[in-house]
């Protein structure tokens, strides 16, 4: 889909593609910042690297108004129910980015207090490793997320450390992206 390659001023697309294209350049992100990765997140968001170029320069500090959850920093077991609640409060369609190695796997923490990867609690779409990740790394993750949003893909699996496999995440009450597309396509 491209405006430039259209000589007549018309363009054809499917609703799914058009929606994905619109969504990927209007990301409202929720920064769930708990630890040192927050510094690198701020660096990425500030003018030098400028995530506004990707349409993601508008952090919302309410989960109800955002569609990408950036989990930035170590999540402890005490914090885990809060994270789950925040994720449940977000409207579908929603995506989750695990920012930094602590959110991906627990990182160098292997102790009584730290969650060994947030994908044991909420489904994660993009993992950005690094301690902390460089802004270039974050932007790479953001572009991969945009690809996913364009395709209308969302992660629906959780990691189960007991079986070392994925298991389906119970969908939070809400309106899934599949339902939304079905609704638009079926309406006259």
């Amino acid at each position, binding site marked *: 889909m491209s405006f430039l390659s259209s000589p007549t001023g018309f363009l054809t697309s499917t609703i799914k593609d058009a929606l994905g294209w619109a969504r990927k350049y209007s990301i409202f992100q929720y920064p769930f910042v708990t630890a040192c990765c927050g510094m690198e997140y701020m660096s990425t968001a500030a003018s030098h690297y400028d995530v506004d170029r990707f349409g993601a320069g508008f952090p919302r500090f309410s989960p109800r108004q955002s569609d990408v959850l950036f989990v930035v920093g170590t999540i402890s*077991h*005490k914090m*885990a*129910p809060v994270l*789950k609640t925040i994720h449940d409060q977000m409207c579908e369609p929603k995506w989750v980015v695990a920012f930094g190695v602590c959110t991906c796997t627990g990182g160098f923490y*292997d*102790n*009584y*207090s730290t*969650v*060994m990867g947030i994908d*044991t*609690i909420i489904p994660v779409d993009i993992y950005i490793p690094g301690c902390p990740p460089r802004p270039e790394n974050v932007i790479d993750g953001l572009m991969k997320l945009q690809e996913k949003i364009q395709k209308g893909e969302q992660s629906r699996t959780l990691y*189960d*450390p*007991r079986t070392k496999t994925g298991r389906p995440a119970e969908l939070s009450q809400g309106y899934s992206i599949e339902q939304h597309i079905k609704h638009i396509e079926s309406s006259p």
Partner: protein
Amino acid sequence: MTPNLTTSKEQGILTPLQRVQEQFSQEVVETHAFRGDETLVIRPGALLAVAKFLKTAPELDFNFLMDLTAVDYLFFAGGRVQKEFRFEVVYHFYSLKHNHRLRIKVPVDEKDPEVDTLTGLWPSADWYEREAWDMFGIQFKGHPNLKRILMYEEFQGHALRKDYPFNKRQPLIGPQN
């Protein structure tokens, strides 16, 4: 230059360690001093009396409780060293007026890990003692609000005890792993 212990005694000026030792000779179990870094090990029963003396004696005037924590000596030095008591509660005092410091250690038994609270003398002891309770399970007799400060109420056991399994997880949500 830090004054050497013998010279200061010869000059008639007692270091905080010597002053406490003089006052509570019956209660001091052990002392240690190295380049002005002074430590006293005292009997648990004498803690309140010693603490009160440290705070009120004008030549000591320890008005700042810098730190309060505990040590678990189970498996100390790979199990080669057996201590009589499993825990030690460690207090670090500082005098802003005299610029001197003192460390007090109180051995605590494993069966009944209890010492007196210092919240009445230094209000900052409140959260330190809650942390020592949370992590080591040391009871502080007379503490006004002795509950967990870092871990959640549902947490079982005390995480920094050496016999707490390092890979044991007690998540509030999510799978047990």
